[in-house]
């Protein structure tokens, strides 16, 4: 048995007793650190560390055409890449299915959670709107990537200021104007499962044991705006509902902790 396998067995045994390698309780998060403005060239940017997991996200804005079915709304484009530097098992190249899934789950949370007031990003209805590019990069992978990516994205959005628009609808980046119109702060929380136990904020090592995941994104008002069960986890209906409630409560707590100031601003509107 390799040392990794031994560790995996040990983690399994601990989890069965409701305990974890780093001493946390099953639904306890590691320390979350948010750093704003990591690239001044971005309209908004942030780095979020959840324990040793480290994710950066940036917002760039361009002028583009709206989708035909939403002529009065801005456009959101989200990409994610697991950088080869982030873990020995990550390969360089086009984003794989895990990175694509992460980008799409985060995107749906932002989009359906009405994080951005997309109607305020309309410039000329049906013709010109702001396109918001959200680019997410995992620099170091120590587990729980979707939650960290969701928080980093939200932090970059809260950091973002809109570039100036010239009279002939060109972007003038020399001057940043108002903050991006933020309406909500959806936070994704991923729940994993070991037998009857639900576990939050897993490390990369723990994820060797707990392959399946269930991500639930909730809004300020506690409503659900995105969910994704994947990686081969099967849950009973009761487990699903229990996980949804756990995620909602955790989301609310974390929102208050790391985005407390902005939360007041957003709620006031």
């Amino acid at each position, binding site marked *: 048995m390799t040392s990794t396998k031994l560790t995996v067995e040990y983690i399994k045994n601990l989890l069965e007793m409701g305990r974890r390698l780093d001493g946390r309780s099953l639904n306890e998060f590691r320390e979350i650190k948010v750093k704003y403005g990591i690239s001044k060239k971005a309209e908004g940017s942030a780095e979020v560390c959840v324990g040793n997991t480290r994710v950066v996200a940036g917002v760039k804005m361009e002028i583009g055409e709206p989708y035909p079915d939403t002529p009065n709304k801005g456009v959101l484009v989200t990409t994610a890449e697991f950088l080869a530097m982030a873990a020995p098992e990550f390969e360089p190249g086009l984003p794989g*299915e895990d990175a*694509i*899934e992460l*980008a*799409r789950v985060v995107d*749906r949370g932002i*989009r*359906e*959670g*009405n994080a951005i007031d997309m109607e305020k990003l309309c410039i000329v209805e049906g013709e010109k709107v702001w396109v918001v590019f959200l680019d997410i990069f995992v620099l170091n992978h120590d587990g729980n990537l979707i939650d960290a990516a969701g928080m980093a994205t939200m932090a970059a959005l809260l950091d973002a200021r809109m570039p100036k628009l010239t009279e002939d609808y060109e972007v003038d980046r020399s001057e940043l104007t108002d903050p991006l119109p933020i309406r909500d702060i959806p936070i994704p929380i991923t729940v994993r499962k070991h037998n009857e136990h639900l576990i939050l904020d897993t490390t990369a090592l723990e994820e060797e044991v707990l392959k*399946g995941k*269930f991500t639930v994104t909730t*809004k300020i008002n*506690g*409503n*659900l*705006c*995105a*969910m*994704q*069960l*994947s*990686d*081969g*986890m*099967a*849950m*009973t*209906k009761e487990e*699903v*509902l229990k996980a*949804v*409630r756990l995620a*909602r409560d955790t989301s609310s707590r974390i929102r208050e902790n790391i985005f407390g100031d902005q939360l007041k601003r957003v709620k006031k509107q």
Partner: protein
Amino acid sequence: MSDKASKDFHENIKDHLRPDGRKPDDFRPIKIEVGVIKRADGSAYVEFGKTRVVAAVYGPEPMHPRHLADPEKAVLICRYNMLPFSVEERKKPGPDRRSIEISKVVKDALSTVVVLEEFPKCMISVDMVVLEADAGTRVAALTAASLALADAGIPMREMISAIACGRANGQIVVDLTKEEEDAEDAVDVPVAMSSLTKRISLLQMDGDLTIEEFEAILDKASNSCVKIHAMQRDALLKKYKKEGEEVDIDDEY
């Protein structure tokens, strides 16, 4: 759901008829057929109204490229694709980010029931093709894929059945059409459930739901999956009867 909340919630919902005349719990006309692709080891066709999907299975066969083989179990490969003319605006051929994600969640769901450990170093390929899309293509594809695996004789612990439930025009409904998905208040929740242990292995959502609404949707979805499963069984039986074989389908199918 608290009793109070539940009461309010149910009062708000009127069981009015849907745009196509269905009641909230009605499926669209469903057609399921097994063994439609002759060269494949297993195959199935599933039609939920105007949503039409073919799935075919090859394998188990030795994994290639070899360095991707898993020494402990078979690798399950799923590919979901929409034909360019299956949708209003022509879709460029080839996989896009949406189809890569759907392929992944379908694979993830199937991997909870297929006995992959029986075939180390092998691959099992599941190809799903959407001929016409009118909402619910991923659940139709997963329902077909599960049948195609059974048809190919791949050992499964239980069958998987899938359906989308959600909210449209003010009520919780089963098996939404594209028209319903486009409703102002529409939320679509694709759900897959296994036939014996009734465990949920695919679940996606995007929209805006209270926990109570979600619970109601999940209830309807799990009831619906039981009915879908009965139709899957019938389709399998029908094929084997046709072939004049000894019919002895295990309980899980």
